[in-house]
């Protein structure tokens, strides 16, 4: 495979990915834990009481980062889905699949904390305005992706169908983001990313940004761990996977496995089906 020469494809080989994730995740966990502690401290004890809402506004330190993460993770999942559809790199599908549950969790938390904030502030847990409805659709897209991926017997087949759903659903993300500008909504407009700068006291903004960074690191860690499991599940009999599952993957084992790893059919040839993926059988049929 000539694509092997492209350097970024190194981590498309499952053993290499596994090793990289092993090295990264401890730092990500530690960073997430530290930033959660700092963020919650600043959020609860340093940030002042809001002039209108009193203390209930502090829900936003969970609500806003989780809502951002939900949207960001969806776009990332769609991007990995696209890499899988176009380059057929299996590790990309494993990453997309690993993102989905965390994305669903983040979106659910955003909706849930939003409802808890809405009850005292608006006087309603839920309204069908454009922001809330499109965010609910985002949750259903994550759940639909997971269901569709699991529905097919063949992992690659399920991955292709689910990836297509992820790409089509990506249209929803800009709708969520811009809904408060495009239509009158009960949900307020953006406070942080505005042309005239954030409309928020600096201590509040600091807590919000620290919590956002904490959620980022947490999501990165949990997604990498889940993708590692997925990589092992895909090659249960392989020597490197056995060693990795036992927690004793040596560098030499990893490099040997990576050298012979099948990363997927990157599509360096001219023949074959475009999206259905029956390249090999088609070519055999013609010969």
């Amino acid at each position, binding site marked *: 495979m000539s694509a092997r020469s492209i350097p970024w494809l190194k981590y498309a080989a499952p053993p290499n990915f596994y090793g990289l994730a092993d090295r990264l995740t401890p730092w990500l966990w530690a960073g997430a834990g530290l930033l959660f502690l700092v963020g919650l401290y600043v959020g609860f004890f340093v940030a002042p009481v809001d002039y209108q809402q009193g203390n209930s506004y502090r829900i936003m330190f969970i609500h806003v980062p989780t809502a951002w993460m939900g949207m960001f993770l969806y776009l990332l999942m769609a991007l990995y889905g696209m890499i899988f559809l176009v380059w*057929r790199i299996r590790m990309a599908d494993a990453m997309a699949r690993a993102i989905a549950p965390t994305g669903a969790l983040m979106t659910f938390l955003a909706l849930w904390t939003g409802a808890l904030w809405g009850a005292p502030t608006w006087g309603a847990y839920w309204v069908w305005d454009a922001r809330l409805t499109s965010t609910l659709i985002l949750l259903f897209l994550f759940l639909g992706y997971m269901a569709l991926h699991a529905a097919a017997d063949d992992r690659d087949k399920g991955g292709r169908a689910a990836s297509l759903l992820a790409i089509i659903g990506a*249209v929803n993300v800009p709708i969520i983001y811009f809904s408060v500008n495009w239509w009158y909504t009960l949900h*307020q407009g*953006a*406070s942080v990313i505005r042309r005239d700068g954030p*409309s928020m*006291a600096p201590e509040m903004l600091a807590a919000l940004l620290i919590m956002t960074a904490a959620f980022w690191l947490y999501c990165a860690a949990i997604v990498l761990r889940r993708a590692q499991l997925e990589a092992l599940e895909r090659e249960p009999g392989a020597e490197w996977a056995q060693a990795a599952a036992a927690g004793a993957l040596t560098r030499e084992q990893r490099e040997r496995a990576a050298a012979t790893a099948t990363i997927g059919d990157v599509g360096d040839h001219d023949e074959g089906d475009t999206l259905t993926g029956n390249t090999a059988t088609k070519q055999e049929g013609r010969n």
Partner: protein
Amino acid sequence: MKQRHKRLVLVLGILAGVSVATALVLNAFRDNLTFFITPSEVMAKTEIPERRFRVGGIVEEGSVTRDTQSTEVRFGVTDTVKSLPVVYHGILPDLFREGQGVVIEGRIGEDGTFQADRVMARHDENYMPAEAAEAVKRAGGDLSQFVDHY
């Protein structure tokens, strides 16, 4: 053309198609996607709508009058151009106050007053410490210059 280029073109084509279709649908349903209409839009209507609808605006300064015998409250909702008189029976959300954003749901009565059966406070995008808001007021400043309504 290599296989992966064909796939890339196909995927991008699907994405472009879906985007255009979505944009057209959203544009067609524009009026239905908006959560509320403004008092000016209510006044511009030539006939009184039969079904319930929502109106959003600011609670007009000095317009709130409460009935001492019941939970009835009357106030005006304005978009700074037109003002709509509203009557409501029930408990108002904590954030309800004069000069604050509000969304009401109900229908127009015989006398042209909006009979609200639901009142929701609309929070704006400003977050500031209570002391800062106090200081602005004490200095004779106008808070509304920080608060851009709609």
